[in-house]
C-alpha cells in the first residue's frame, strides 16, 4: 500500500471521527447540559443550602442528618411504599387479566382494546378532575353504586385510611400500557406449544400455568420494574386532588420534594430527599434484576 493511500485513509478516519462527533454533538451537548450537569449539581446541592436567592452555602452533612430526623420524610416514604407495594401487584393482576380476556379471538375485540387503552392517553390533570367527581362523598358515582349495593357511602379522599386505597383504585384507570405490553407478550407465545399441551391433555388452567406464565415472565418482569419506578414517582394526582392531605395521607415523596423546594425554598434539602428516592428506586431495581434471574425465563437462554 502506498504511503499516499495510507495517508488518505488516515485522513478519512480522522474526518470520520470528527464528523461522527459533530453529528453526535447535539445529543452530547444536550445530555451534558440537561442531564449530566443537573444530576451532578443536585448531588452537590445535597451538601449545600440554597434558597435560589443567596449563593449556595456549604452545610456538610446537615441535610442528610435532617433526613433522618424529619417525620414528614418518614410519612412520605411510608405513603409512597404503601402505594407502590399494593398498587403495582394489583396493576399487574388486572392488566394481565384484561390482556388475557382481550387476547381472545372475539368479535369487536379491537374496540375493547381501544376502550381500555383510551384512559391512558387522557391527561392526568383531566383524569384527576374526573375522579374527583367519581369519588365525591355525597354525589359521586362510586358512592351511588355503593348505596345501591347496601354499602354505606365512604369519604374516599377525605378519610386518611381510605385515601391511599382510593388513589390505587384510581391508578387502575390508566392501566392501558401495561395491558398492551401483556397482550404483545401473549401473542408472542408460539401457538404450537398450546397445541402440544392440548394434545397431552392439559386443561386450560394447566396451559396457562405451564405454558403462558413461564413464557410471559420477561413481560411480567418488565412491567414490575417499570411499574415500581413509576409508582415511586407518583405526584400529579395528589398534587391536584388532595395536596397531600388529609392528615398527610397522600403526601408522597415527590410531592414532599416539591413542597420543600418550591414552597420552603430549601433546594439543598429537597435534593437530599430526591437522592434518597433515587437510591431506593435504584436499589429496588437492582434487587429485582437479582431476584429476576431465578424466575424470569428467556426462551433464547435455553
Amino acid at each position, binding site marked *: 500500500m502506498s504511503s499516499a493511500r495510507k495517508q488518505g485513509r488516515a485522513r478519512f478516519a480522522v474526518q470520520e471521527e470528527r*464528523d461522527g462527533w*459533530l*453529528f453526535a*454533538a*447535539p445529543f452530547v451537548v444536550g445530555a451534558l447540559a440537561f442531564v449530566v450537569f443537573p444530576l451532578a449539581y443536585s448531588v452537590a446541592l445535597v451538601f449545600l*443550602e440554597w*434558597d*435560589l*436567592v*443567596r449563593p449556595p*452555602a456549604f452545610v456538610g452533612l446537615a441535610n442528610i442528618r435532617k433526613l433522618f430526623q424529619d417525620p*414528614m420524610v418518614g410519612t412520605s416514604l411510608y405513603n409512597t411504599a404503601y402505594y407502590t407495594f399494593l398498587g403495582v401487584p394489583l396493576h399487574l393482576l388486572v392488566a394481565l387479566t384484561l390482556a388475557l380476556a382481550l387476547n381472545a379471538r372475539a368479535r369487536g375485540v379491537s374496540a375493547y382494546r381501544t376502550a381500555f387503552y383510551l384512559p391512558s392517553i387522557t391527561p392526568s390533570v383531566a383524569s384527576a378532575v374526573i375522579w*374527583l*367527581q367519581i*369519588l*365525591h*362523598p*355525597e*354525589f*359521586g358515582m362510586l358512592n351511588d353504586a355503593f348505596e345501591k349495593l347496601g354499602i354505606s357511602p365512604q*369519604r374516599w*379522599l*377525605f*378519610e*386518611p385510611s381510605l385515601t391511599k386505597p382510593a388513589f390505587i383504585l384510581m391508578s387502575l384507570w390508566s392501566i392501558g400500557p401495561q395491558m398492551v405490553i401483556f397482550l404483545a407478550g401473549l401473542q408472542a407465545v408460539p401457538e404450537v406449544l398450546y397445541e402440544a399441551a392440548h394434545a397431552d391433555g392439559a386443561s386450560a388452567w394447566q396451559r396457562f400455568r405451564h405454558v403462558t406464565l413461564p413464557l410471559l415472565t420477561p413481560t411480567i418482569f418488565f412491567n414490575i420494574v417499570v411499574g415500581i419506578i413509576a409508582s415511586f414517582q407518583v405526584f400529579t394526582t395528589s398534587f391536584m386532588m388532595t*395536596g*397531600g*392531605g*388529609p*392528615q*398527610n395521607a397522600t403526601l408522597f415523596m415527590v410531592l414532599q420534594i416539591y*413542597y420543600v423546594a*418550591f*414552597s*420552603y*425554598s430549601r433546594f439543598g434539602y429537597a435534593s437530599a430527599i430526591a437522592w434518597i428516592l433515587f437510591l431506593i428506586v435504584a436499589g429496588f431495581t437492582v434487587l429485582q434484576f437479582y431476584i429476576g434471574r431465578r424466575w424470569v425465563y428467556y426462551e433464547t437462554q435455553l
Partner: protein
Amino acid sequence: MSQSRPHDRCSRRAFLGASLVASAGALIAACAPPPPPTATPAPAPAPARPAEKPTVAAAPTQPPAKPAEKPTAVPAPTQPPAKPTAAPTAKPAAPAAQSPAAIQPAQIRYVEWGWDPDIKAAQKIFAMFAEKMPQIKVKLEYWPMAQFYEKLKTEIAGGTPPDVSFSHGEQWGFHAARGLLVPLDEMRKRDNFYAPWPEELKTLLDPVTMLRGKVYAVPYFVFSLAYVYLKEPFDKAGIKYPTDDWTVDQWLDICLKLTKPAEKLFGYEQRFGHWAEAGFMRAERGEMEWDSIVEPRKAKWDQPGIIDALQLHSVDIVHKHKITPSPAALSAAGYGAMIGTGKTAMINDGSWVFPVLKGPDAKTPEGREFDVVMPPLPRSGKRPSVASSNGVHPIWAASKARDAAWELVKFMSEEPAQATMPPITGRQPVTIEHNYKYWVPDVEKTYGIKNAKAFVEILKTGATHLVGGPIDPGYLTREGGITEAFDKMQGQGQPAAQVIPEMNKKLQKALDDFWATYKE
C-alpha cells in the same frame, strides 16, 4: 468505472456538517441575553429640572407638591431624596414629585396573577396608563395561578425577575428580607404618595406592605369577609333577613331552622381553614394565635378562647349541629357550587362570591337574589372579622427602570385605575373612600344588594390571618401541622381541646426549626 467527486462540489456530509455548525451558532446566538432596550434608562440620577417651575404631583388624588423655597434637585431613583434646602428655621418643604414628563422612556415588564378578570382589568388600566405616560411601555405577562410563585422563584434564580409583579400580601416577605425588592419609602416620601395607606386601614395594610419598618409593596386591592345570604330560603322559612347587629346565638338558631337534612339543604357554608376562621378565633376572647402575624416566633393557639372558637366553627357546626356541608363535600363540589345552586343558604366569604350567585358566570342561569350582612357578634361583642390586602405590587430590585415601575404601581393604586378595577374584578379598592365611591354603588347596582357597606365597614376592624414575613405560610400550615389539625377537627370531629394543644407543639417546633436555620 470509477467516479471521482469533483472537489469544487460540496459533499452531502460536508453540507450537513456545515448546516449543523451554522444551526448551533444560531442557537447559541439566540440564547444570548437580548440587548437592553435603548429606551430603558440606567438607574442614573435624573436630570435636575429648573427649580423656578413648580413641580406637579403625579398622583391625581394628591395635592400638588409645594414648590420648594429654594431650588431642589429631583432625587435620583436610587438616591435618598434631596434634603430641603430652606433655612433651618423654615418649615421643611414637601419633597418635589416628579411630573409625568420627567420620567424617562422605559420598557417595563409586569407579571399578573392569571385570573381572567384581573388580566382584563390590568389590560384596561395599562391602556389608560399608556395615555398618561406614553414614554413608558408596559409589557403585561400573566402566568397560571397554580404555578405563579414557582415561576417567579425560577425567574429570580435566573436573574431575570420582572420589574413589577402582582403579589399576595403574604408572599413577598421572603424576597424583601433578602434584598430582592426595592424599599419604597424614599419614593413615597419624594412623591408624597400615601393615599393607598389610609390611617383607618393601618392595622390592615401595614403587615402586608411593610417589613421591619420599611415599605416594600403598594396595595392594589383589599378584601374582607362578610356573610352573604340567599333570600329565597329565608322567605320560604318565614325568617327575617339578618341585620348587622345579630349575634352568634341568633345565627346558629337561623342556620338550624334553614337546615333540611332530608333535602340535603344546609343553613350555612363555612369557608374552612385558618385564613377564614382567624376572625372567630380572635373575637372569642381577644386572644391572638401568634405573638406576631409578621415573623411569628411563638405559636399561641392553645388558649381557651381560640380552642372554644375552633370547637364551634371547625367541629360542632359540621358534626354536632350539622348546619354546613362537610369540608369534604364542599371541596369535592368545587368553589361556589353549593351556595350557587341554593344547597346552602349562607356563606362567610369575600365579595368574589357575588359573580357565582348572579350574572353571566353564575352557577345557575337565573341567578339568585342575595344580600350581605356583617358577621354575627359573639358574646365578647368583638366583631370576628378577617380582612386583608391580597393584592399588592412590589418592585423588584433588579429592575433597571425603577422610576417607571414606581409610576406604574402608583397609577394602579390611584384613581382612575381604582375606579376601573372593581367593576371588572369585583375586588374592593384600597381606600374606604374609594370603596364607598366606586365599589359599593357598583355592586349594589350590579347585584341588586342593599348592604354592601358591610364589607367596607369590616375593613376598619378586620385583620389578616398570617403574613409570615420571610416564612412561607405554607410551611407552617403543612410542616407545623395546621392543615392536619383542621383535617382532624373538621373531617373527623375530633375535639379542638385534644387536637390544638398537640398541634401547637408541632407548630412551635416548626417555628423554632425555621428560625434556628434562618439566614439572610
